[in-house]
């Protein structure tokens, strides 16, 4: 573990956790996770970035196993992990468990969320959940050509402001927007772009009181934990994996990694 505060540019500072998740981290500088709803062109984006050809289609459940690929940009080597396409990260289904555990415990350097520009509202469900887990995210606003065809106009700058992360309009099928996406992936990974992710706010008083109280308790116990709010939300949902990670100290590792990067 390097001892300076400039570690953002060090190769794979959290490789330990990633190796545990089955990622071979030799020879890679950064890890990128690719998340999103089914049927948003996520696999097409993956293929564009890596040059691999994976089948994409209109059905959920297409991405069978966790696909991995690699690419180089600005003389840095990126490993990219295609997470299962899911509508949410909150349920007990295996797909969703894989996706949320990877983003939480794997601590990828960047999480790219691919969304369908014609169905933004539904897709934001997933985006807002991801932003509770990680600060380092890029939104790939895919299928803007389809949106245009349907007379949907999107103010991507306003969207970026609202979400606090870079937003890249793209049409992955036509390879539109891929250079910009690469650039933002690099900037976020290298710490040149600091995200200020939006957190979920609620109108429910009892919800807010409970979350706030638990967050302060968690921060007392794990100072510096980057995603105390997510941990609180999961505890209130009774997520056994989080309960166990508190008991066995796995959560402390996340704090440590974060300490060296901030």
């Amino acid at each position, binding site marked *: 573990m390097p001892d300076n505060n400039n570690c953002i540019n060090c190769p794979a500072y959290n490789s330990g956790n990633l190796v545990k998740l089955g990622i071979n981290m030799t020879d890679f500088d950064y890890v990128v996770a690719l998340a999103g709803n089914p049927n948003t062109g996520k696999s097409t984006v993956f293929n564009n970035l890596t040059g691999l050809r994976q089948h994409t289609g209109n*059905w*959920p*459940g297409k991405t069978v196993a966790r696909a991995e690929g690699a690419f180089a940009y600005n003389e840095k080597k990126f490993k990219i992990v295609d997470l299962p396409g899911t509508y949410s990260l909150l349920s007990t289904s295996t797909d969703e468990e894989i996706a949320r555990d990877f983003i939480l415990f794997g601590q990828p350097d960047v999480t790219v969320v691919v969304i369908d520009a014609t169905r*933004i509202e539904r897709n*934001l469900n997933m985006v807002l959940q991801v932003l509770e887990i990680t600060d380092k995210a890029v939104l790939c606003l895919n299928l803007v050509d389809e949106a245009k065809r349907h007379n949907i106009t999107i103010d991507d700058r306003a969207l970026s402001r*609202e979400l606090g992360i870079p937003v890249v309009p793209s049409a992955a099928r036509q390879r539109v927007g891929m250079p910009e996406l690469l650039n933002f992936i690099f900037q976020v990974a290298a710490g040149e772009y600091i995200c200020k992710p939006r957190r979920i706010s609620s109108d429910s008083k009892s919800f807010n009181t*409970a979350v706030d109280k638990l967050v302060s*308790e968690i921060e007392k116990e794990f100072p510096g934990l980057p995603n105390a709010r997510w941990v609180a939300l999961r505890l*209130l949902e009774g997520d056994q994996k989080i309960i166990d990670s508190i008991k066995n100290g796995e959560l402390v590792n996340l704090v440590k990694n974060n300490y060296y990067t901030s």
Partner: protein
Amino acid sequence: MGSWLIWLKIIIILHDLIMAETLNPKEKLLNTANELRWEVGENFHDTLLESIYKNAADITALTVNHDNKGRKYNFDSVVDKVVTSRLLGFPIMFLLLALVFWLTIAGANYPSRFLSFILIDNIHPFLKDLLFFLNSPWWLTGLILDGAYLASAWVVSVMLPPMAIFFPVFTLLEDYGYLPRVAFNMDSLFRKAGAHGKQALTMTMGFGCNAAGVVAARIIDSPRERLIAIITNNFSLCNGRWPTQILIATIFIGGAVSPHLAGFVTAAAVVFVAVLGILFSLIVSWTLSKTALKGEASAFSLELPPYRPPRILQTLYTSLIDRTLIVLWRAVVFALPSGIVIWLVANLTVGGYSIAAYMINWLDPLAFIIGLNGVILLAYIIAIPANEIVIPTILMLTVLVTGNDSAGAGAGVLFEIDSASQTGNLLISSGWTLLTGMNLMLFSLLHNPCSTTIYTIYKETKSLLWTFVSSVLPILIGFVICFLVTLIYRAL
């Protein structure tokens, strides 16, 4: 005394629990979380999702402008109105399906012949000559070329072209977004059978290849409905069985009526068997959902994605790689050893008779009861890797048993005859009747899935029990149906 010890142990644990009031900070944290959970109540998840969507709606309102007056926007809903309309919904569905099948059957014919010409008519004799030239012993040539090579070549040449056409066309419909509408339309029928509307799609996929149909059942996310779709997929008459149906129907059903009706009756007979398969698929689905799978959880979710122009080249490429080649590869892997077994059974002799002859003799009594013959049963046992090689195996075994050397590439070698009437003559002269023909058509529909499919079922369900059920259930039904038909036929 034994039970005393156990009670004591329980009491000690309970006592420790009561005493352990001093908690470490982590446990205290978890305790706080638990108390808060009771306070916020059961609706936490609901509240969370409500809040998320409230945020999502706020953000969307600020950033997205949707001009509803645009003309093109209505395109999707117009198409949807048409494909779900009472008047046009079903006709469109059947027409598209018929088109897919016509493309597959008509389109596959030439490449199939071409492959067969290359692999079987040319390369096979060439390799045979080569081995002969190298002084290879006859049994080695037989094992490798007449056994392993020939069976695999057969599978490739018969299986590859139809799949290479069927799957991409199917995938194009899928990528365009039409297939979810089929599931949407068919759901009311399948719901009554305790199944999911998407089973209509896996079933259709099964008409191409059952193994692919079983994999496609992944699109069904409810465990019970998915299992039902997997178990009943074999009732879809797959690509490998269509030629058998057509050939046998031409010889025995078409041959039994006057020539100007023959074509129509033959086609009707084949369609009847396919529809019978759909019927069985629904009946078995219903029965399973009411009995063995009653306790499994059931759920329904279906999103109708927007129509999107499919990317034809990409689709051709990926569906070829993803579906066709993977299935073909699995089939070849199973065909290789089974080709060797087929050859051994036909060529290994004990006491002057081949093993096949013994097995046929042994199977004959059972076969007689269900109106078939030992040759057919043996063919279905040893040609388990692919339904495509059942007919060649039957012909080879028939020649072997009858000693009729007028056709074929020599004793104990798979072959097929180009003309249906010649094949008919060979079969009829070996004692086949209308009953044998009818029952073979039924048995071809109702028997265990091929080994590729069985293996795929295991990979998908990870359960030996369900693999066993899906393998044995159809063949049991097949025995019963063939037996009943035989009873009635013989009584008439």
